[in-house]
């Protein structure tokens, strides 16, 4: 699936929910099912410090495709990252770099987020792209 296709799929899934409970349960579920990140990868240099929760992000490139691993001590934060990982994982560095991440605004999730959390989300997207930059154009 292309990045745009995954985004479309996510938006459709989220549009099924009628209240905040369902929406949050979905995000929490995403977080729970995020591929585990080995403990030895949760190092200082992979840490993105948020206001109240911490996020670890690891990126590698195999066979020309980005591979992301992430974790957070906050389940909701983790669910948000899972959203991004689902969209960007297994894509080429160049596709990641040019991806339009504004789809998050259409999920309606941001309205439920503290600005600190929304900021963290933007920071996350930026970081994922930045890591792709290292492998792009090769």
């Amino acid at each position, binding site marked *: 699936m292309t990045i745009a296709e995954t985004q479309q799929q996510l938006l459709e899934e989220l549009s099924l929910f009628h209240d905040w*409970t369902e929406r949050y349960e979905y995000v*929490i579920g995403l977080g729970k099912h995020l591929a585990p990140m080995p403990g030895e990868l949760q190092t200082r240099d992979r840490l993105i410090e948020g206001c*109240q929760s911490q996020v670890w992000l690891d990126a590698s490139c195999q066979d020309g495709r980005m591979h992301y691993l992430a974790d957070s001590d906050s389940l909701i934060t983790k669910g948000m990252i899972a959203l991004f990982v689902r969209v960007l994982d297994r894509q080429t560095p160049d596709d990641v770099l040019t991806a339009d991440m504004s789809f998050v605004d259409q999920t309606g999730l941001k309205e439920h987020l503290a600005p600190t*959390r929304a900021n963290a989300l933007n920071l996350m997207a930026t970081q994922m792209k930045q890591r792709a930059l290292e492998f792009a154009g090769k």
Partner: protein
Amino acid sequence: MPAFDVAAIRAQFPILSREVHGKPLVYLDNAATAHKPLAVLDASRRYYEEINANIHRGTHHLSQLATIAHEEARLTVARHLNSPTPDEIIFTSGTTDSINLVASILGRAGRLKPGDEILLSHLEHHSNIVPWQMLCERSGATLHVIPVHDDGTLDLPAFHRLLTERTRVLALTHISNAFGTVNPVRELVAAAKQVGALTLLDGAQAAPHLPIDVQDLDVDFYAFSGHKVYAPTGIGVLYGRYKILDSLPPWRGGGEMIKKVSFSGTTYNNLPFRYEAGTPNIEGAIGLAAALDWINRIGLDALHQHEQSLIRQAAAALSALDGLRLYGPSDRAASLSFNIDGIHHYDLGTLLDQMGIAVRTGHHCCQPLMERFGVTGTIRASFAAYNTTDEVIQLAAAVKKAAAMLR
């Protein structure tokens, strides 16, 4: 409850009728800041609509009215703290400003030297830690910390060991903002006096809940914030014992705090003005007096009883939940801190907010205390005059629902 009519009280707080995420607001973040009753909002507005003027030195009528209102506000604060004289009441911009004032002028006076010690507790808010750390850096004094027991109370034998002839300052919170621990401050202040230490109490959390009598406490400095006692933001108080304050040098320089300025030398004003440089927060002082008057019309005893009853109900209701851990002693006041095993406080707070319930999550500006308890933060519910038993029940139900979602 005839003596304490919470419905009548709630009706005085316009913000309480608002909704959050489509649900009625349940505001349990009072230790961070309290809402303002109409009596305070009206006093502020009346000041601007009727007597606004810059104070002191003014010849004209408005300036006189504003000066009188400002100085009457000082008298109200003095009465409220049972301060022997209003000259001991310094208006500041908040607790943090008050504590910095004391630490700074002690530093400027050279009262601290290498080898001297400043004694704090592990319960302190950053505002009662960092100013002293900065003073230690400048003076060569060292910081010592009274440890806490697992129930969040001070280790008193350790306190007595740590208190020595080298202790120059004891700076202690009256009530812990993180755990609600009420410290035995009268006893500790008395012990500190015995070794000749100056004493400062951080009353940010005590002032909204307890009657404060600086003479009975026999304390040298007492600090609190307006915004936590139902008053506007940007105003605070430092009570300072006359004899001590009068012997210390000024901090901020400028208008009001001087007697005579010339380029060859300046003489400073008397207390309290020496420590109030520049145009003060006149609205804030008047709003603070209105807030204290409002509190005293209800009565701090009735208020405290009401809040204690809520906090006990909350502790009981939450304790029944799976994996719930309460912090602080059972006779805590003002604030109730908890966590649920395996659940991040931030996640729980986020879901509570979706249900209209405002609590605080995180380290509560008490990182050393959080570290001591091996957590990155807690969820804190804190109570005020307008909270109700119904809100306590909603809190417990919401925590239960949120925990289920997060497990």
